[in-house]
């Protein structure tokens, strides 16, 4: 009975499965400045540089999915109610599940470093190509389009104060050795906040260990892991302590990247109408069964796996893999989906819509009061709470009134540079951005977030701007998505350190030409 050969003989108690190669980092999407021959969109999916920068895991399959669609905005005529919101989500869901047929580019890299690309469900038909890795290649499609491709190592394009973000949400694994067996010890039940809470010794900056949360962790102390204080922390000068320090936690690091520059006319036959390129990425890992399946021992199959791929077999291809990670919007996972594996739905996150509302409200109860304490106006209704509150909701009905403005307000842009053609493009609203979980690149803009995502966008700071009241003004200007990135704001705020929450620039200059992401270190 349950002899010595039980699953624990082989199953690791703690997962030591190296899923890093499947760990997706970011998805960038923006119109290319190169319009020779027609409009093009750039889509860049980055992931962990595993096994090495520029070397890909041959057990992995990456999908870059895309669908071009008309620009559709909420008219604003309807009332800003939960019912309206849920109907909107439902209509978007219907479009994605029935009307839109996403095309995709599937990428695998063999042991020799050759990347196999399969272009599926594009208007011009399916085809496949093989390209070298770590060099820019140009593919000519059967229809004569030119697609630039780069599959290889790059400098890590995300620049943010990740420990600061995790400090703001009291995320234990960043600061502590947390037992893997204790999954409840993740976001501890302490109010989220942008400024430190007095007495929050579990997370407040410790000058004796300045590298805490960056290069070292402490042992998680015994519980309870709560906070019983009632005010923000102030120093002897009356300054709050910022949970961020603005340092780039990803400086000096590399990633692997799959980057395409694709003619819009290749993605859609109606380029005049379908101005939004919605894209998202997925990582899949080969199932064990298919690593040893008895396939015909023919060199052709091994060298040209896509040769057997046609529309009817594409699902068969995917059945050999297991979905691991998805990527669309920045912070959709980290901030809103709470990093749970079962919320990795990718574009199909409609079912999470009620959860987003409650989650946004939960974040708002933390960030909102801290924004107010700094003398700024918040979009979140926190009843003038003098301090951040830890509050959760079990259903969106109770949460909705608090986040109504956060969800429905138009997000002002810092200037008009995002709209170079001066077109009448409505500003985007939070609820339009996060469901579905895609990068929606507006081809009539520069693709600056939230109209896409350009590498130089400081999206971590822009995400925090959702909690600002866009009708408020600072120095005669309406708040906008870059307000919190303005050093002048922090220089005059009662806070230390006086810095925007995140670095303003990447540690390496991006390129002004394909593949846009910088050379690896």
């Amino acid at each position, binding site marked *: *009975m349950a002899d010595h050969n039980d699953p624990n003989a082989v*199953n690791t108690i703690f997962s030591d499965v190296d899923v890093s190669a499947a760990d997706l980092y970011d998805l960038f999407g923006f119109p290319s400045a190169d319009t020779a021959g027609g409009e093009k969109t750039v889509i860049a999916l980055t992931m962990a540089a595993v096994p090495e920068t520029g070397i890909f895991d041959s057990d992995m399959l990456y999908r870059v999915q895309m669908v071009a669609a008309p620009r559709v905005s909420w008219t604003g005529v309807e009332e800003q109610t939960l019912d309206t919101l849920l109907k909107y989500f439902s209509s978007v869901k219907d479009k994605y599940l029935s009307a839109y047929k996403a095309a995709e580019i599937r990428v695998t890299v063999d042991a020799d470093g050759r990347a196999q690309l399969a272009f599926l469900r594009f208007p011009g038909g399916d085809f496949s190509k093989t390209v070298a890795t770590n060099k820019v290649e140009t593919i000519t499609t059967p229809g004569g389009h030119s697609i630039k491709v780069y599959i290889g190592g790059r400098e890590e394009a995300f620049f943010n104060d990740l420990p600061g973000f995790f400090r703001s949400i009291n995320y234990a694994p960043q600061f502590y050795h947390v037992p893997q*067996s*204790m999954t409840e010890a993740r976001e501890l039940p302490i109010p989220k906040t942008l400024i430190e809470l007095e007495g929050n010794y579990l997370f407040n900056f410790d000058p004796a260990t300045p590298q805490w949360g960056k290069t070292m962790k402490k042992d998680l102390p015994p519980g309870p892991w709560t906070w019983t204080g009632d005010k923000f922390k102030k120093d002897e000068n009356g300054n709050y302590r910022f949970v961020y320090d603005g340092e780039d936690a990803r400086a000096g690091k590399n990633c692997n990247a799959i980057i395409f520059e694709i003619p819009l006319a290749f993605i859609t036959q109606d380029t005049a109408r379908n101005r939004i390129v919605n894209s998202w990425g997925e990582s899949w890992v080969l*199932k064990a069964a298919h690593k*040893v399946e008895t396939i015909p021992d023919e060199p052709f199959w091994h060298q040209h796996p896509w040769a057997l791929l046609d529309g009817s077999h594409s699902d068969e291809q995917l059945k050999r893999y297991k979905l691991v990670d998805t990527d669309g919007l920045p912070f959709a996972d980290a901030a809103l989906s709470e990093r749970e594996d079962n919320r990795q739905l990718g574009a199909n996150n409609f079912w999470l819509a009620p959860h987003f509302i409650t989650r946004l409200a939960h974040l708002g109860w933390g960030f909102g009061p801290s924004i107010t304490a700094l003398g700024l106006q918040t979009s979140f209704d926190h009843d003038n709470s003098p301090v951040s509150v830890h509050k959760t909701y079990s259903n969106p009905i109770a949460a909705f009134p608090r986040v109504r403005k956060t969800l429905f307000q138009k997000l002002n842009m810092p200037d008009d540079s995002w709209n170079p053609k001066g077109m009448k493009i409505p500003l985007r609203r939070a609820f339009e951005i996060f469901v579905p979980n895609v990068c929606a690149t507006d081809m009539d803009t520069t693709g600056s977030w939230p109209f896409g995502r350009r590498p130089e966008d400081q999206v971590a700071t822009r995400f925090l701007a959702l909690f600002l009241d866009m009708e408020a003004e600072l120095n005669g200007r309406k708040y906008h998505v870059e307000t919190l990135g303005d050093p002048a704001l922090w220089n005059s705020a009662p806070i230390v350190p006086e810095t925007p929450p995140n670095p303003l620039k990447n540690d390496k200059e991006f390129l002004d030409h394909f593949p846009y992401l910088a050379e690896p270190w």
Partner: protein
Amino acid sequence: MANLTDYQNDLRKIERNIAEIGSPSDTDRATRRAYGLYQHAALTGRLDEFTAAEAAIAEAFDQVGSWPDLCLVKANLDMKFHRLQGAKRALAMAPGLTESFPGRTVWADIHLQEGRYGQAKQMCEALIAENRTWDNLARLAYWESKFGRIEDAEVLYTEAEEEITAKEMRGYAWVQLQKGLLHLRRGRYEQAAVHYRRAADAYSGYWLVEDHLAELYGSQGKYDEAVALYERVLAENSRPELQQAFGELYAAMGEECEAEKWFDKALAGFLEASANGGVHYYHHLVDFFSDVREDASAAVAWGRKDFELRRNFGTEAALAWALYRNGHIEEADEMMDCALGSGVQDGHLFAKAATIKAAAGRSHESAQLSGRAFALNPHHQGFHVHRS
């Protein structure tokens, strides 16, 4: 440098990880070191390595206290050696660990070991509903196989396979071995061979796969192949149960002298472990003294010890057989009824039950059980390894 097998590669990886940790200076390192040693031991199966892992765990407890992950490693180690009370204590050392997902996984095994079959199944099903991990699917498959639902077991093992990625080939190979065993225990040798070969293809150089293949070859009468494999396995791992299996192979071949040599080694290993406080070989000793070197009273003594430790159809049947060997027919009959009452479906168990029933004068039941034994596995009287 010759290419390493998958097994060797994994061992090297674990050894590198342990070496990198060096002398553990904090909770994380102490836990990872203890866990690494446990992992290495679980892979090689060597008893001396488990002893070293246990010492590292104890040292880590002294250093860092009852860190939950460390407690979990201890609980798993205890389960591996049938120390059920030890496993329960380890889980209870860290608040919340018993209720955690991995904690409840251990408890599912404890329930099964202690004869609470329904609870074990319910717990497995609940764990799977919460998080569909391959090992819990495999646990449920094992449960179904023990109670005769072979098709359900196969489906569940296949579902377990679907959850295993190319980064977990060892796990995949293990599931193939379980699928192979399902067929082997039904006398379906060719189907067993398919799965064992797939396991070998999936994960090269693994002694456990060779051990299973050796049993298959022995069952088929391919003695030369079986001997060659056992020699390779025993060069890697000299566990007494493997030595006993090798001895039984030689006995099946009619080579009594060789058989006795290996039985001597096996017995010495069983007794040494038990003398040192180990309880994991009690069931092997029952079996040994019942059928290999008959000493019925010793068989009963070990049988009662194992029965006291964990009361399930395995220990009940083993004790019943020992009692029968010792001439205590009535008590044997009652104990075997307990085992049969669990609903277990096992050809070897039915065959022994048939013999006991016949001795007890219950010839009709005996005939039925013989028929059922034969139906489950027409080759149940042939060479086989006592894996459970």
